[in-house]
């Protein structure tokens, strides 16, 4: 499905909560069933709309963390203290509750195995969500595309999808963590913010012309994208998804 697809007017659809899973102390994944879902591509997102009884509305965007799989749509939500939407999604939703979502949208920041690699995925915190959809799709398709994930988290306990990533490590996927605030005893991995030196050690070289996807808070994305260009990577080969301060 190359280029611009004719998809038709978007509508808000009902999404039913199937399950709420705790990923880390601050992060939950909510599995939704969206009747009539026509599928999505790894990397796309949805807009979520919550409406209060008096008509008050709030909208946020969330990346789809699950690979295409029937009518299932998983969203991974970081609870932001004093946030308006994330505490509701993370703490209040129960199976059979309903929210509205619109999508999938965002054909720019997508990957599928047929596009090949090598792939360099750089995730800052919850920026892992769309990249995890790509990694899960890769696994489901039994692709062996050379894929390197550089994943920045605050601490070992804050690594989202940690166990699953450990299981998937291998078969051409290399997962590298950097823990920026605290490290467990005996930690020999990276313990600083992502920089050019780290990217050079982990990533494919510019000559290999990797497809690069960077996702996370805006300052993280900026720093990584700049470092990659500084190392000689082609700017047009780097796709970014910045999570700006759209509130919690």
């Amino acid at each position, binding site marked *: 499905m190359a280029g*611009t697809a004719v998809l038709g007017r978007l509508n808000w659809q009902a999404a039913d909560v199937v399950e709420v899973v705790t990923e880390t102390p601050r992060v939950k994944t909510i599995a939704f069933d969206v009747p009539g879902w026509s599928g999505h591509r790894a990397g796309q997102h949805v807009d979520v709309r919550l409406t209060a009884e008096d008509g008050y509305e709030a909208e946020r965007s969330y990346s789809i963390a699950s690979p295409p799989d029937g009518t299932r749509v998983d969203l991974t939500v970081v609870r932001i203290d004093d946030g308006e939407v994330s505490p509701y999604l993370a703490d209040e939703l129960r199976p059979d509750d309903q929210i509205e979502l619109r999508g999938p949208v*965002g054909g720019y920041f997508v990957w599928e195995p047929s596009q090949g690699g090598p792939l360099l995925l750089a995730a800052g915190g919850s920026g892992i969500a769309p990249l995890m959809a790509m990694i899960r799709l890769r696994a489901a398709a039994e692709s062996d595309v050379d894929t390197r994930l550089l994943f920045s988290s605050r601490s070992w306990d804050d690594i989202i999808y940690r166990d699953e990533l450990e299981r998937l490590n291998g078969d051409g996927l290399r997962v590298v963590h950097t823990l920026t605030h605290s490290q467990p005893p005996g930690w020999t991995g990276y313990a600083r913010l992502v920089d050019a030196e780290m990217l050079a050690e982990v990533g494919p070289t510019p000559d290999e012309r990797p497809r690069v996807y960077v996702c996370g808070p805006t300052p993280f994305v900026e720093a990584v994208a700049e470092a990659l260009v500084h190392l000689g990577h082609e700017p047009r080969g780097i796709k970014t998804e*910045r999570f700006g301060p*759209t509130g919690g």
Partner: protein
Amino acid sequence: MDPLMVDGNAIAGLLQEVFAVEMTTASGTCGTCGATEAVGAIHVFRGAGIVMRCPHCDNPLVKIVRDDTRLWMGFPGVRTLEVTL
């Protein structure tokens, strides 16, 4: 770099509401500096309304204001928009 900025991809839903086609893979040419970028890579700011700015020269390309039933889109700085059919 501005910490408030997001990518064009962040308003993919809004754009698809208007254009009824995927717009983030379309490409726009800046009327001020001539640079061409995918809409998904254009810089988006959220003020009273949405402003899309050229990543190279910062000039406003598109302004968007909306209420429940209407949307106003202005193109002060777009020279051309290319959409694959």
